[in-house]
């Protein structure tokens, strides 16, 4: 393998990893606040794919993209209101089961509405333009994905560490009831969390499907599961962790494909999960407990 081929594969891997990272952040943020694994998150990502297909029918891409982002955010927030909020005081297992239910609901709703046949993902001309940097050539989306991911993660971490609402999010994630005693409106914080998670999933979906060309009702299932693994790898609850986890998975899968073991690229993800859970269950950047009693 020559150096340029190697670099080409790295670029592909980083790009795939970037899309994974954006979705993984949604899992990790919701887990951080509600201690809920939002199994419907992968399907929100899938729905964002369909939204794009329909938006691009009638609008140019620069109108379609904001529309898709808004629609996905509304979907995510609506799901939280309808399926999770009524269970706020229920045992954690109930809300988890509700999440699994929403996941199946979205998959079957999509099958019912859009049929199970894959639909072509619209091409956003500017993203598909081929660029050449030295010996590397790839479409713009491949270059843009990791850059956009890093920028969004930086922005998000900044927001969480330096804004009032970010401070409220950290407080809620640590201690629900005490956060309430401070006058924090818990439901508002949770809504914002779902909105951010869904927004990033929508961005991830545009980047991911532009490279994949087709959407079908189950195209959120496996990526969703993988991104959940990415979040666990990085240490669920940690945003930089989710990003690193996403990149590790993206690079690892691409490496296996490049070496000719593409059959094992999905298995790789789950082997990695098992190894991580055995060796370091809290993940790479898992919560450290600094409490003194």
């Amino acid at each position, binding site marked *: 393998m020559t150096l340029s081929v190697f670099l080409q594969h790295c670029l592909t891997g980083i790009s795939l990893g970037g899309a994974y990272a954006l979705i993984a952040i949604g899992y990790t943020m919701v887990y951080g606040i509600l201690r809920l694994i939002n199994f419907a998150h992968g399907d929100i990502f899938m729905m964002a794919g369909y939204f794009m297909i329909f938006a691009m029918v009638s609008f140019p891409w620069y109108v379609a993209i904001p529309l898709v982002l808004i629609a996905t955010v509304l979907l995510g927030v609506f799901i939280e209101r309808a399926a999770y909020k009524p269970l706020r005081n229920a045992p954690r297992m109930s809300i988890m089961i509700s999440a699994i239910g929403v996941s199946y609901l979205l998959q079957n709703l999509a099958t019912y509405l859009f049929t199970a046949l894959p639909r072509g993902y619209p091409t956003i001309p500017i993203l598909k333009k081929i660029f050449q940097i030295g010996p590397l050539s790839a479409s713009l989306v491949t270059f843009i994905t990791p850059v956009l991911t890093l920028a969004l993660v930086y922005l998000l971490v900044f927001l969480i560490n330096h804004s*009032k609402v970010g*401070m*409220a999010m*950290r*407080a809620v*994630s*640590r*201690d629900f*009831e*005490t*956060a*309430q*005693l*401070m*006058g*924090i*409106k818990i439901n508002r914080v949770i809504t914002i969390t779902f909105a951010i998670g869904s927004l990033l999933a929508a961005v991830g979906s545009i980047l991911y499907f532009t490279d994949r060309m087709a959407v079908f009702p189950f195209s959120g299932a496996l990526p969703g599961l993988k991104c959940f693994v990415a979040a666990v790898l990085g240490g669920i609850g940690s945003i930089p962790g989710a990003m690193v986890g996403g990149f590790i998975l993206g690079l690892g899968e691409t490496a296996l494909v490049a070496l000719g073991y593409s059959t094992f690229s999905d298995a790789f993800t789950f082997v990695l999960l098992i190894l991580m859970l055995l060796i370091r269950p809290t993940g790479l950047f898992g919560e450290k407990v*600094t*409490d*003194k*009693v």
Partner: protein
Amino acid sequence: MENNAYLKITDLSVSYGGIHAVKGISLEVPKGKIVTLIGSNGAGKSTTLRTIAGVVKPKAGSIQFDGKEICGKSPDDIVSMGITLVPEGRRVFGNLTVLENLKIGAYVHNDRLDKYLDDIYELFPRLKEREWQLAGTLSGGEQQMLAVGRALMSRPKLIMMDEPSLGLAPLIVKDIFDIIKTINAEGITVLLIEQNANMALKTADWGYVMETGVITMEGTGADLLANESVKEAYLGKRKED
């Protein structure tokens, strides 16, 4: 008691976690006073405070603050009205810095906090020194100071404290009670829950004794301190034969 009750609870009943924890209690806290509620573990004291703060919903009864009904209001409304609770076990946000913990105490306010922070640092110089430290790294006593400071940042009219002396060294317990008196002297009404009945009754203007969800006795701190059955049950003194 006097008629000018600032906080007035009437026939309050609360079920919590499947237990009928508070069974129709009535109590009053006059403006500018320190009132204490003593009683053993599981008597329903914490549930009472958490109901006033709005995090637990009552089954029946009324809670009036400054003449307005607050029963059923959300916790953020209650904080905005000037009631704050220092929860049992301090519950500082260990993943936030000391400064952030104080800022979050003022979450319902949107103005500049510098002046209020200075007031807190004057009361607790230790917190100023540790401003940038994560709250989880503070000692128990410092965490309690932070929890009180955080509550004061909401600019309360009534501060409720749930076992502020729990698990602290005797010297620090004395500090905590001095601080309670200081806060009260600044015009903030105090409702205090304590297992350390001795200190609480010495500090308080008025005391209530709570047992398994009902109030069994009330009186001035001094009266209750002198009462034989209170002595026996809460002050660790035996009746003389």
